[in-house]
């Protein structure tokens, strides 16, 4: 069944090529994108089942055996991440299709959107499956290149400005990663991760620390770990709603995945764990304090995104099976919830014309469904029982308490505080945007809402202001349906939390043992 392994990378790439050839035929493009992502989801689910039953699956790309050729490795962690990311990308795709349909057939950039979106998916899956450090770099570059196009789609002034920050910071992190790869290769003579697991162990301590720090720095920028996080709230909110949603859900988590992979496989042990824990604490607190100060829903959510990256780092920094399991569970939970919240923010913007809290009000009465779509994932994010956010935080806190020590206790306290402040930030959004009777909806009527209708911005600009509200359906059913599906998925995570935690714990044990991964790549021992 190893033929399944490359499919999540190959299918989106082929779909993107087809879509590129079919520019100008939106219906066909949409069909292809949906079929491809459904197939990717199916392949990912089968991979997860197989890896849980049989252990890691390995494919030597091009038939070249491991140390010479590049391998794709699907272990349980990769399988889990693939399933979640495929589910989320599929929902966001449906959402953006709903938006595209609602905005009319004149929405020109849509034809670039589909191929780029599929390439982004391929980059993400490639990063998850990479069994080779350079292939991981290539995966990152694929997804980053696609993300540059997506974040600046429409090329308005605000997007060019914010996109510049994003592109330059991402390129810088890529250079750091490249330097890390160069150093690792110079020190060990290989980039195959299974082989590195053996060879890095043999290196002198100082050299290992250098390699570890350079790689952590590169991944820390991508994962938006404080103090490397300032670029994120500055660049994400300006993009179109589906793009922000998928970026927020997936891209930082690819960085977290890379940190988990390298910290467990290449640099095992608690060397560097203290740095991770301190970074985790600062990320949580600084991020959430930033969120509390915001007056725009999208910016506020971007800050909570940064803040909750801290929880995942916390789990990784504990270097215990329980901590790692908590981190993996939290990654899965957070991908779904954060994406949902950004999609809902897009719906709010569509309905009320703005995401500025000072101008919003009375949405609970005007749009009860929208309120529900916000309320459930918001409580989930803040960690209210019985939702998965609570369970994930509980798992992490328990692992922290078990670990003991000053730093772990500090992190436990910081985690609780962050959770409370998240609740405060979320409650503020709820009170201002939904609960208060607030400004009349006519008062909040936007002059124009660039961010939510970029695909048809020129159409919107041509239509007279008064007529626009009447001609545009308030909430396109497809957009609501896809958001609702993600809300249900988020609640579903709570329902299946037990089995999901078991899978996370299994993956964590596998990661910490290291040998299953190495043996899968080199059945006869690493050369």
């Amino acid at each position, binding site marked *: 069944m190893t033929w399944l392994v490359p499919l999540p990378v190959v299918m989106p790439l082929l779909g993107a090529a087809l879509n590129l050839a079919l520019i100008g035929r939106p219906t066909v493009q949409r069909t292809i994108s949906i079929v491809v992502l459904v197939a990717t989801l199916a392949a990912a689910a089968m991979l997860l089942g197989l890896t849980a039953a049989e252990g890691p699956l390995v494919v030597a790309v091009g038939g070249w055996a491991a140390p010479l050729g590049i391998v794709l490795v699907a272990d349980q962690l990769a399988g889990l991440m693939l399933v979640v990311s495929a589910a989320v990308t599929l929902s966001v795709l449906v959402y953006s299709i709903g938006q595209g349909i609602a905005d009319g057939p004149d929405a020109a950039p849509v034809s670039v959107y589909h191929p780029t979106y599929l390439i982004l998916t391929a980059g993400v899956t490639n990063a998850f499956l990479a069994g080779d450090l350079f292939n991981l770099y290539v995966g990152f570059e694929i997804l980053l*290149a696609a993300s540059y196009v997506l974040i600046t789609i429409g090329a308005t002034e605000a997007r060019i400005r914010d996109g510049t920050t994003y592109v330059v910071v991402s*390129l810088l992190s890529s250079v750091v990663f490249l330097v890390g*790869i160069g150093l690792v290769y110079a020190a060990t003579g290989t980039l195959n991760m299974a082989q590195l697991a053996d060879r890095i162990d043999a290196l002198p301590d100082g050299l290992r620390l250098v390699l570890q720090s350079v790689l952590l720095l590169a991944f820390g920028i991508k994962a938006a770990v404080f103090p490397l996080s300032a670029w994120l709230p500055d660049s994400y909110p300006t993009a179109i709603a589906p793009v922000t949603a998928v970026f927020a859900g997936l891209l930082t988590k690819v960085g977290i995945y890379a940190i988990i992979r390298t910290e467990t496989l290449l640099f095992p042990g608690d060397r560097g764990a203290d740095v991770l824990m301190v970074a985790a604490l600062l990320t949580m607190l600084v991020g959430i304090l930033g969120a509390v100060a915001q007056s725009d829903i999208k910016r506020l959510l971007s800050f909570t995104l940064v803040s909750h990256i801290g929880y995942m780092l916390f789990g990784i920094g504990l270097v215990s099976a329980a901590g790692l399991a908590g981190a993996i569970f939290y990654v899965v939970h957070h991908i779904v919830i954060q994406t949902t919240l950004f999609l809902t923010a897009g719906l709010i913007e569509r309905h009320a014309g703005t995401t500025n809290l000072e101008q919003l009000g009375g949405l609970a009465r005007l749009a009860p469904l929208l309120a529900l779509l916000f309320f459930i994932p918001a409580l989930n994010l803040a960690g209210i029982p019985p939702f998965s956010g609570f369970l994930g935080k509980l798992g992490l806190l328990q692992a922290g308490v078990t670990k003991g020590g000053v730093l772990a206790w500090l992190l436990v306290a910081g985690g609780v505080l962050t959770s409370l402040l998240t609740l405060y930030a979320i409650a503020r959004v709820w009170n201002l945007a939904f609960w208060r009777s607030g400004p009349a909806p006519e008062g909040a009527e936007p002059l124009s809402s660039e*961010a939510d209708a970029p695909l048809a911005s020129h159409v919107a600009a041509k239509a007279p202001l008064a007529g626009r509200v009447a001609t545009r359906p308030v909430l396109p059913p497809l957009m609501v349906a896809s958001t609702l599906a993600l809300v249900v998925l988020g609640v579903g995570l709570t329902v299946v939390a037990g089995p999901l935690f078991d899978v996370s714990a299994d993956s964590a044990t596998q990661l910490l043992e290291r040998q299953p991964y190495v043996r899968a790549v080199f059945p006869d021992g690493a050369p």
Partner: protein
Amino acid sequence: MRPNLLFVIVVGVLFAAGVTLLLERTLTRVILGLALLSNGANLLILLGGGYGGPPIVGVTAESRMSDPLAQAMVLTAIVITLGMTAFLLAMAYRSRVLTGHDEVQDDAEDRRIMARAAHDLGPETEDAQPDGPWLVLRAGAADDDRAPR
């Protein structure tokens, strides 16, 4: 294997110059800085591959070959950098078309703080600053946060 000292110095100079340019405001200079940085990184990888003859069977004895894998990786990295630089140049051009310059502006938070400062200081102090009117302009823009002009 012992790295060539000249190469090491060149890598260091490339990185230093790249970082300096990266700290500039103008996007064109940032692009040049990134180009220097990635060239430095590529040279570093080549250094890691070791020194030797061309890795072609029959031309060089196997023991004297340089590492072809490092060269292959550098080629990949060069191609990727080329694409990214082209994209960034397009962005700089677009920025010039839209705003008349390619300077990267302050982020929303900085703009808001500046607007508040300008508001608190009142109109009389603004004249004292050379870029006072600009501040007022940005203050207006920051108020309706990201609304298109």
